[in-house]
């Protein structure tokens, strides 16, 4: 009797979490899937309309534009955060005396919500009151920085603020990775006469592969879910220049009372997210089994 209990106990312990997730995540995803094929407007309603909402969705310039913006934003954000995070981690890993002081400074933006940091950024980027004006007051009259007001460049200011928020976290991940490298490997390479840059490029950075992967997953999902940031910084403007799928979905579901179209955009977002995560997960679990 005791034997059977012991053998079932692990599953029993896991069961509540698993059932909660099954219902509150996957159940709700199915529900959203149904809404995306319904005639819901202000509140859910269950008249079936097939793929109508999807057809309407893809005809909206607003939606295709937001996908293009996400492509630009996501690529830059992930690339810059990874490179910057790695560089800062390498720099910080050189026996820096003030590391204890610098690390929390790099990390703290992750702790703040964008409800108000967004305002600070918005001011800072605004040519009328922010950096540009300050430079003018300091005598650099020709200084020009008005990206946030430009339809073509505003998306880059969103990248700047987003990088500000999460690159420190990526730095911490890389730092942890670097600290896990066996110093003997480096010492051996040094004895062989390899230069410092070469050691990093050929030996250490390749060892960071798993960190790159985790960073990618964390950043990719942050990019696709980015909402607060855009709302606080640009409100999707100028025009629709910084509209992203997440702001699109909220707007259609909750402010435009077109819940069906909102749900269909949510389903497309989920498909995008899962198509990034599932292969990663598959590879991860496979190597697990191999080892």
């Amino acid at each position: 009797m005791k034997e059977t209990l012991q053998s079932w106990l692990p599953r029993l312990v896991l069961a509540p979490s698993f059932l909660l997730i099954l219902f509150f995540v996957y159940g709700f995803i199915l529900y959203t899937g149904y809404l995306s094929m319904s005639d819901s407007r202000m509140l859910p309603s269950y008249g079936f309309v097939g793929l109508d909402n999807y057809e309407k969705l893809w005809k909206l310039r607003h939606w295709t534009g937001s996908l293009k913006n996400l492509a630009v934003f996501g690529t830059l954000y992930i690339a810059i955060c990874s490179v910057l995070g790695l560089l800062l981690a390498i720099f910080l890993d050189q026996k820096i005396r003030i590391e204890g002081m610098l690390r929390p400074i790099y990390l703290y933006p992750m702790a703040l919500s964008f409800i108000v940091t967004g305002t600070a950024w918005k001011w800072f980027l605004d040519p009328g009151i922010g950096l540009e004006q300050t430079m003018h007051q300091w005598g650099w009259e020709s200084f020009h920085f008005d990206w946030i007001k430009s339809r073509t460049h505003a998306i880059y200011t969103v990248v700047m603020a987003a990088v500000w928020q999460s690159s420190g976290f990526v730095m911490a991940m890389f730092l942890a990775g670097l600290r896990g490298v066996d110093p003997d490997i480096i010492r051996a390479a040094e004895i062989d006469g390899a230069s410092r840059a070469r050691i990093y490029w050929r030996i250490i950075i390749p060892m960071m592969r798993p960190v790159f992967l985790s960073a990618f997953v964390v950043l990719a999902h942050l990019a696709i879910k980015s909402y607060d940031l855009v709302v606080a910084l640009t409100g999707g403007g100028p025009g629709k220049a910084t509209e992203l799928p997440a702001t699109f979905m909220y707007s259609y579901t909750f402010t435009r009372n077109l819940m069906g179209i909102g749900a269909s955009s949510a389903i497309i977002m989920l498909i995008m997210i899962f198509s990034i995560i599932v292969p990663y997960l598959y590879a991860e679990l496979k190597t697990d089994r191999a080892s």
Partner: protein
Amino acid sequence: MKTSHTAAGLVLALGMGAVATTALADDVEVLHWWTSGGEAAALDVLKQDLESQGVGWQDMPVAGGGGEAAMTTLRARVTAGNAPTAVQMLGFDITDWANEGVLGNLDEVAAADNWDDVVPTALQGFAKHEGHWISAPVNVHSTNWVWINKSALDAAGGNAPTTWDELVSVLDAMKANGITPLAHGGQPWQDATVFDAVVLSMGNDFYQKSMIDLDPDALAGEQMIEVFNRMAMLRGYVDENFSGRDWNLASAMVIEGKAGMQMMGDWAKGEFLKAGQKPGEDFVCIRFPGTQGSVTFNSDQFVMFGQGEGNNEAQLKMAAAIMNPVFQSAFNVVKGSVPARTDVSDADFDDCGKKGMKDLAAANSAGSLFGSMAHGHAAPAAIKNAVYDVVTQHFNGELGSEEAAEELANSIEALR
């Protein structure tokens, strides 16, 4: 619902009893988005009034996006079966919720206080549903105002413009004087507020046909192209850094004399007064040139969510208190808007307020009081936002005037 049982079981298994708190029968829980100093203080007058009648006030403010955040909250609350007792609401949201059949009936208080005669007809279009009163309007904001810096105006000739051409020449003169002629914030609702006024300046009939009847011919026609041309002209008088700017920062530009004028609803007045300016002396308020005698409005109203069998006493008391002329006056003096009933004394209002009240009464009797598209009183949310999309894209140079008119007609048609 097998699954919900599972979930309930799990919750109990985790040792979390349900501790639902419900408002007492003689309390009102009020969902609203009036959180800034002045307006919240004004609402406090209502709270005090109700408390003196033994009705407790549970405050549930959710600010953001001109009520958008509060409306999201409301949907979650109603879905959860935990609707607040009273909710601040605008225009077509009221109609949409009334169609869901969840709003309480206020006929009893309305009849006692004779709302039918004192509330402007256009407001009744929202406050009544299928002949029954469902909401108590707190105020009427009118949106077709222009706020002009007095000394900038004096330097530009001194005469407040009354026609489009005069407006253009004043703007030109201001430009020549080296200031930004038009202070504007590039956010969709602000763009649309100016758009409303420009449409209205093409005539009452045109506004009615295009913005309220949503007639495709009017939406794509010559006059609409002219409207967009005028929007493009106005864009030429706005400074480089306009996009994303909050409306109050635009007001500050006018207050400080960095800019000549701002086209904005009557809430902008509060910014001027707070900065110590006096209407007529430091700043001038006029109707958007070409819209004299007409008013586009939005009106904050409170609806009561049905609590099972009919409304409870507290809700009816609150509705009555909102329509009390003393409260209407006290609240609107602070808020910058005008009372939602036409029989309130204008003694406590400043010059702009008095003018606002007179304009409202005149427009009401002349039939030239229209719901504002920009503020959700001309068409439902989906259409309003479709208008925002086009107006904002055009204002930012993404669409030409003819394209914009066509896009406007098409996107509205697609939603109907």
